[in-house]
């Protein structure tokens, strides 16, 4: 059994132990969940260490066979060979490795951030472990079946985290989340299975299909190869376009892109801090991952064809998210809209379909993940003390909470793309890519750089600056349980900003692989 398999399974085992072993205390539940995520993090580090930069394609591949569907049953290509193999398959490449690291790290910190007062710890830590395992699975799945299964796990695990452990209006928020992302899964299922069928020659002229027919496969590397060579006769471009639009719909919902975004601010407003960290830090990166892995990876021609549309939506998201963030009076909704604005830039970078833009989009996924998690963590810590995250109700916190205020400032500055933070290096690459392909749209999008400063510094001014509200005079500043996670995240944000080539080299490998496919 390979490293990457255990990496995914570790939190799952932890979760199952929490669930099934009776009479464990709250501290043990927490400890087990912590161990599960820590094991995932360590194994990711080992995989990173063993990663070979001279190999393109996936490494540490583990495939588990489950059953086969004979070609007569699935009927994708009656004349071609091949039974459809169903099973679990994992592996890493330059894109998945940093995302695995992000996932395991944020889940670890989320567990550290969890309140001691949380009740029903068995369920709580079970769902957290499960959502972690699901996300890890999503980012290293090498097979459509594995991918969809992992994505579904994150869906209902996150649903229960919001539904049971959320705050005000948690139930409607949880259902909104479930319905929206459930719809995304349906669209995704149609798109991915459709692509697999199309690659097997189901949607094309019969002669061409027979010539190129390699049989139905859910294996992502195989599909990538096939999609690279399959002719238009064998897979009609009409069918591809429809499948791509389904894929795009799934991406828009998963990633909370305007106009399919309203589940995200609502969910963040209701979710507790660790859930928000997982949701904003990792779960909202699955959409961009799908667009990179399956959009650019499998249907690059369609990404190019719909490039202007995607880029325009990128700019719309940047500006819409930023303006909406400006109007918010609650920190958590502000962060949610800020993250929508960030991910709009990811859309622009991917639409550009050049190496710089794709690399910028990948950087932005990690950067936005770290910063969003850090912001939610800090706002949660402040809310624990002041009992509010409403911006007008705060003020002058620099005096009573200098350390938390300092971290909040760093997080805000990273979010607004200050150089020497991860935010900047992501922005600059995504915009280089964007300006190369779509200069006019990028000129519009770049205004978001001003707006991000406006809404974040406005919130900072109202939160940490100004005269101290006497209600907050006697607050206790960050405890070690708080400043250690904040320090870890801040250090990473700065590290990526100062020496970006460490993850840049990894991303570069994936970018090269994608660009070779995209032509």
């Amino acid at each position: 059994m390979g490293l990457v398999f255990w990496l995914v399974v570790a939190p799952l085992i932890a979760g199952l132990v929490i669930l099934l072993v009776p009479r464990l205390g709250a501290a043990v539940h927490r400890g087990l969940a912590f161990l599960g995520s820590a094991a995932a993090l360590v194994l990711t580090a080992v995989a990173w260490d063993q990663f070979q930069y001279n190999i393109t394609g996936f490494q540490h591949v583990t495939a588990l066979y489950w059953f086969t569907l004979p070609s007569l049953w699935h009927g994708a290509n009656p004349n071609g060979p091949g039974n459809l193999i169903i099973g679990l398959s994992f592996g890493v490449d330059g894109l998945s490795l940093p995302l695995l690291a992000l996932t395991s790290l944020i889940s670890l910190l989320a567990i550290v951030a969890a309140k001691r007062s949380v009740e029903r710890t068995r369920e709580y830590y079970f769902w957290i472990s499960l959502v972690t395992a699901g996300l890890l699975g999503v980012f290293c799945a090498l097979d459509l079946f594995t991918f969809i299964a992992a994505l579904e796990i994150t869906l209902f695990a996150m649903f229960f985290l919001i539904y049971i452990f959320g705050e005000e209006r948690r139930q409607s928020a949880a259902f909104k989340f479930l319905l929206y992302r459930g719809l995304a899964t349906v669209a995704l299922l149609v798109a991915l299975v459709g692509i697999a069928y199309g690659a097997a020659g189901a949607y094309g002229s019969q002669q061409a299909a027979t010539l190129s027919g390699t049989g139905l496969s859910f294996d992502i590397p195989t599909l990538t190869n096939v999609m690279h060579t399959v002719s238009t006769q064998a897979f009609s471009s009409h069918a591809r376009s429809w499948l791509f639009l389904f894929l795009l719909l799934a991406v828009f919902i998963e990633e909370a892109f305007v106009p399919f975004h309203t589940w995200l601010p609502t969910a963040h407003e209701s979710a507790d801090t660790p859930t928000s960290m997982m949701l904003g830090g990792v779960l909202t990166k699955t959409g961009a991952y799908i667009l990179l892995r399956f959009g650019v990876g499998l249907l690059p021609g369609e990404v190019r064809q719909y490039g202007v549309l995607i880029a325009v939506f990128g700019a719309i998201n940047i500006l819409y998210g930023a303006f909406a963030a400006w109007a918010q009076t609650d920190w958590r909704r502000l962060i949610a809209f800020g993250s929508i604005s960030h991910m709009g830039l990811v859309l622009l970078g991917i639409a550009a379909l050049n190496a710089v833009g794709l690399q910028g989009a990948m950087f932005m996924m990690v950067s936005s993940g770290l910063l969003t998690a850090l912001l939610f963590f800090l706002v949660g810590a402040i809310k624990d003390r002041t009992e509010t995250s409403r911006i007008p109700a705060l003020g002058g916190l620099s005096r009573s909470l200098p350390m938390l205020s300092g971290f909040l400032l760093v997080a805000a500055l990273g979010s607004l793309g200050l150089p020497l933070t991860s935010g900047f290096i992501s922005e600059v690459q995504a915009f280089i890519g964007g300006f190369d392909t779509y200069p006019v749209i990028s000129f519009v999008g770049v205004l978001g750089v001003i707006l991000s400063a406006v809404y974040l510094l406005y919130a900072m001014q109202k939160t940490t600056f100004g005269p101290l509200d006497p209600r907050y005079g006697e607050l206790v500043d960050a405890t070690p349980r708080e400043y250690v996670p904040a320090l870890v995240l801040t250090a990473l944000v700065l590290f990526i900003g100062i020496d970006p080539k460490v993850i840049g080299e990894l991303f570069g490998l994936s970018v090269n692989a994608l660009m070779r496919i995209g032509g």
Partner: protein
Amino acid sequence: MVAYAWLVPLLPLVAYIFLLCLGRRAPEGIVTGVSVVLTFLSFLVSVAVFRAVGSNPDQVAAYTFHWLTVGSRSISVGFEVTHLNALMLVVVTLVSTLVLLFSKGYMHHDDRFAVFYQYLNLFVFSMLALVISPNFLQLYIFWEMVGLCSYLLVGFWYFKPEAALAAKKSFIVTRIGDVGLFAGIILLFLASGSFDYNTIFVAAAAHKLTLGWISGQALVTLTAILIFVGAIGKSAQFPLHVWLPDAMEGPTPVSALIHAATMVAAGVYLVARAYPLFQASPAALTTVAWIGGITALLGALIALTQRDIKRVIAYSTISQLGYMMMALGVGAYAYGVFHLMTHAFFKALLFLAAGSVIHAVHTQDLFEMGGLHKKLPLTTWTFLAGALALAGIVPFAGFWSKDDIMSATLQSGHTVLYVFALVAAFCTAFYIFRVFFLTFTGEPRNPAKYENAHEGGWVMNLPLVVLAVLATVGGFFNTPLNGNGLEKYLLADGAVGVTYSENVPLMALSVVIALLGILLAAILYWRPLVKPERLARGFGFLYQLSYRKFFFDEIYGAVVVGGGKVMAAIVDGVDRYIVDAIVKLVGRVVYYLGLGLKYTQTGQVQTYGVVAGFGLFIILAIAMYRVGGVF
């Protein structure tokens, strides 16, 4: 020596990290000692680098290291030494050392003394790193870092709402300019494949900067203007000048260092460093000249009537930065940089002297001062040196540099701009001597504050004296007497800039204009022949225009900020009442659909059987058609 130029920014960085480790409760003596000593060492290295480059122009070089690969291109970081930035290093380290020393007295007993020094050291490091950057991206990185330090230091007294507001305003207004710079360097990168100055300038000179969607010449003009937009923000040029006066909410040493001598001059430095690009586009140069000229006049006109001592000097800074830009715009490269240097000396001096006054009387209102020359003799004399330099009285530093600029402007054929500069020069002499007379001469207008006034001790006096000496003799670095030494030094960077012959009548004219300004200030505020209030009333609307700063804040507040807020409210409204409402509507529809469908759940096995059988039939039919059989 040049290969060790990286030591110059490194030493303040070491100081910063050291202070960070000491924490916020570190003793004041150690904090100041470490900062001043390391920055002074940095100054010594700068001087050595300056001399090394001067003695051997071949030493001009860039040292770079790989930073990040993007696609097929490599982005590098490193440092470079040119004649221009060697001079900048000396100026920045010198003024920084003096300000760090001065702050010991000014910030004494502040709760966050150590934090203040941390920020200042971070600023000095960032500013030096900006100057020594060999490419646009690294410049941009530190361009934003100095902006961050400015934000932190303007908002240093964070509990004051005005300071919080001013900090935010300064960051956001400069960021509007920064976006232009950001877009400009990205376009240059795409056109040339590199961020490196030299690669880009070589490509520009060879007309090889090209992009698919824009012609080569238009691209040069567009990028040059975008870069200039960045400079407009940072150097507080019209129309983005509004942040600088508000930035005076920061402690006065900060105003002296960041908002007079160094950071605000970064925009001028940027245009100077990117000069080959600007020279390739006459349209861009003309833009620079006109923005500079308008700013010089506008700043001087507003400074005439302000009541706050720091705001007068802030508007003066805006105006003087306008002179520098105008010089660059009319092709007088060396004079613009020369004025940057002399201005750094005399403006830092004026701010520190003002700081000494504020430290003594705890007010910034000119009309609560008066007669302070008896209490603060050293401050008075040093301020006078700075005021004479600013007014451009021979032989003080400002005379040489400003006069060069004005002559060059006229001789380049920009007559209107020359008139602007002349009017501004008259106003300059008037407003700075208005401050001088109101502050130091006459009778104390607030006896209580006057009684407690005293000098700030040697840590505050020494920087004043050093700067006063430089403000007095600093002009002699570049006079016909030494064969225009600095000009020759700067022009050794390559064929940039045009020189102008000295013109004695013009020099005399500008001195006379300045003397008239001083005379007017004297008869209004020193030996009053006319009551200033009557004059103000006589000018009526014009007075209000100046006093209300041409209503820029009001207009921007209504149009830009108001417009943005309206836009935000609209987006928020659309989000809540249209997008989310549709989502809720869909949810409702599905819900009622479900209510209807529940009647199919009759509980009767017969009904279920019929439906199930029907379904099975359909599936079988499809299977037969599609595959030709399932069994």
